């Protein structure tokens, strides 16, 4: 998956498991940038009575580099606190929840937002902000969109924030991918051929928890300017999200948990699928604990990928040029570790320098597309992945095609992509998501409710 349960240790700690990160110029206000970081993979909507929530013991952060050194220049921190109103019931709610202050809602969560700047200046922007409840069902949460809207908080400092449950927006045919990349539309070409079939969205009707932040572009640039020139390095930001836990935990056997020590990073994510498919199992937990500025140690895994090797084995004869290509994958390094330099794609660059780091790089001077293409830059849409990432971008297909060799010729003209490289897909698009994306903040769809999902 994008980064759901992607590493052995974090797969056992879903509350801290960073599943997706998005960064895009807001389509409904081009002066703003929206950053989303998702946690808690594969939430079954009916998962009560202890419905999903953020961890009070987790530090959630989204980091922004705006000067190309892969170091944090601006960090937003989010800390949560859960309050139980009635300790004498097992229920999440004892009646319909009609507002964020409804006394029927028993287990509520609040959070603080803190902005940390490069040299340590720390400002608590807000405390006690309410998260919405989970979407329980028509009797418990009869007007869920209104509850979620009430949980959109506009801060006096210019940011808009939301933290709570949303519908999973990442779509991928998990069943086929993990069944030896047996992509249904192309399984007739697989080493174990079956008739070609339509893709199945493995994340459909599941939820996640998102932390959403929207802010004016000039609050992210190094000099406070509004970026307007795509070739100006000041137009670029590199983004990643993380989750951290205290270094030590003591369990006293009386349900009291004590913690001490500094925060230790247990999960991080910039580009989708980076840790998932590029880093081998033995290194994934270590990768999660590292800062992006240290990613040069993972360069070899980016230059020499496993997926192309597997594709050429599972699809014999389908990718002959890819099978014969033995050079280090410079296209992968550009897409994932440095950004794409100017001169490769007309009108676009997101090259942040030679510091190798997995960051989601956004050129903020590129305006939102009037006719977006879910294949992003591969589809000729410069406002899409890997120029940041929008909620609807088909990042699985984009990366699959790149891994299959569709982007090698951009940096190595001697290579001719195989005919199938630019056709490969798991057969999905946003229409396979039942809860549609929103046209406004926080953009991810209304979470699926537990009464209707699953429905049979």
């Amino acid at each position, binding site marked *: 998956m994008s980064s759901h349960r992607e590493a052995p240790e974090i797969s056992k700690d879903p509350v801290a498991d960073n599943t997706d990160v998005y960064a895009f110029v807001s389509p409904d206000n081009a002066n703003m940038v929206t950053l989303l970081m998702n946690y808690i993979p594969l939430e079954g909507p009916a998962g009560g009575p202890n419905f999903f929530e953020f961890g009070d013991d987790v530090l959630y952060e989204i980091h922004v580099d705006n000067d190309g050194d892969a170091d944090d220049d601006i960090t937003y921190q989010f800390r949560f606190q859960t309050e139980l109103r009635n300790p004498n019931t097992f229920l999440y709610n004892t009646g319909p929840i009609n507002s964020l202050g409804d006394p029927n809602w028993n287990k509520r969560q609040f959070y603080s937002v803190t902005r940390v700047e490069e040299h340590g200046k720390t400002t608590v922007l807000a405390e006690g902000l309410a998260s919405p409840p989970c979407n329980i069902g028509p009797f418990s949460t009869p007007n869920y969109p209104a509850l979620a809207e009430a949980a959109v908080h506009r801060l006096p400092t210019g940011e808009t924030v939301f933290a709570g449950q949303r519908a999973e927006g990442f779509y991928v045919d998990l069943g086929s991918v993990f069944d030896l990349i047996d992509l249904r539309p192309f399984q007739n070409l697989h080493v174990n051929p079956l008739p070609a079939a339509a893709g199945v969205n493995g994340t459909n009707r599941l939820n996640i928890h998102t932390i959403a932040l929207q802010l004016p572009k000039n609050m992210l640039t190094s000099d406070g300017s509004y970026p307007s020139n795509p070739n100006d390095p000041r137009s670029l930001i590199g983004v990643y999200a993380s989750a951290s836990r*205290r*270094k*030590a935990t*003591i369990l006293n056997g009386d349900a009291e948990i*004590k*913690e*001490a*020590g*500094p*925060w230790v990073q247990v999960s991080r994510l910039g580009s989708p699928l980076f840790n998932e498919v590029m880093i081998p199992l033995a290194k994934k937990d270590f990768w999660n604990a590292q800062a992006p500025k240290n990613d040069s140690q993972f360069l070899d895994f980016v230059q020499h990928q496993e997926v192309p090797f597997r594709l050429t084995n599972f699809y014999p004869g389908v990718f002959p040029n890819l099978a014969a290509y033995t050079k280090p994958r410079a296209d992968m390094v550009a897409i994932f570790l440095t950004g794409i330099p100017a001169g490769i794609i007309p009108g676009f660059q997101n090259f942040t320098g030679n510091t190798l780091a997995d960051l989601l790089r956004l050129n903020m001077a590129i305006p939102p597309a009037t006719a977006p293409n879910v294949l992003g830059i591969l589809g000729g849409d410069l406002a899409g992945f890997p120029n940041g990432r929008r909620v609807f971008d088909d990042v699985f297909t984009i990366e699959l095609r790149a891994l299959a060799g569709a982007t090698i010729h951009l940096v190595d003209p001697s290579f001719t992509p195989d005919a199938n490289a630019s056709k490969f897909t798991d057969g999905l698009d946003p229409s396979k998501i039942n809860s549609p994306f929103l046209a406004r903040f926080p953009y991810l769809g209304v979470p699926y409710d537990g009464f209707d999902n699953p429905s049979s």
Partner: protein
Amino acid sequence: MTDLNRRSFIKQTSVGAATLGLLSSLPALAAISDSPQATMPEVPAAVFGGPMIAHVTDVAKGEVALLVGAREIIFRDLPLVTRLMKAAG
């Protein structure tokens, strides 16, 4: 550990811990500090406001990581670590 031994252990180790509590309040000593002398200074109560966890990271060097609040103070105190090892049996 018997009660007698436990009390003895607490009495002995509290000396080192109190010393370290004072050390942790001094920013200049945030890095590795050698504390061969076990003394009993007055320690601000705030230092012990939350849990404090001592992790012996290197027995041979007497190195201890003290986790208190959001801080980690690394120091060396071989006599303390020796006593801890004896207490651990």
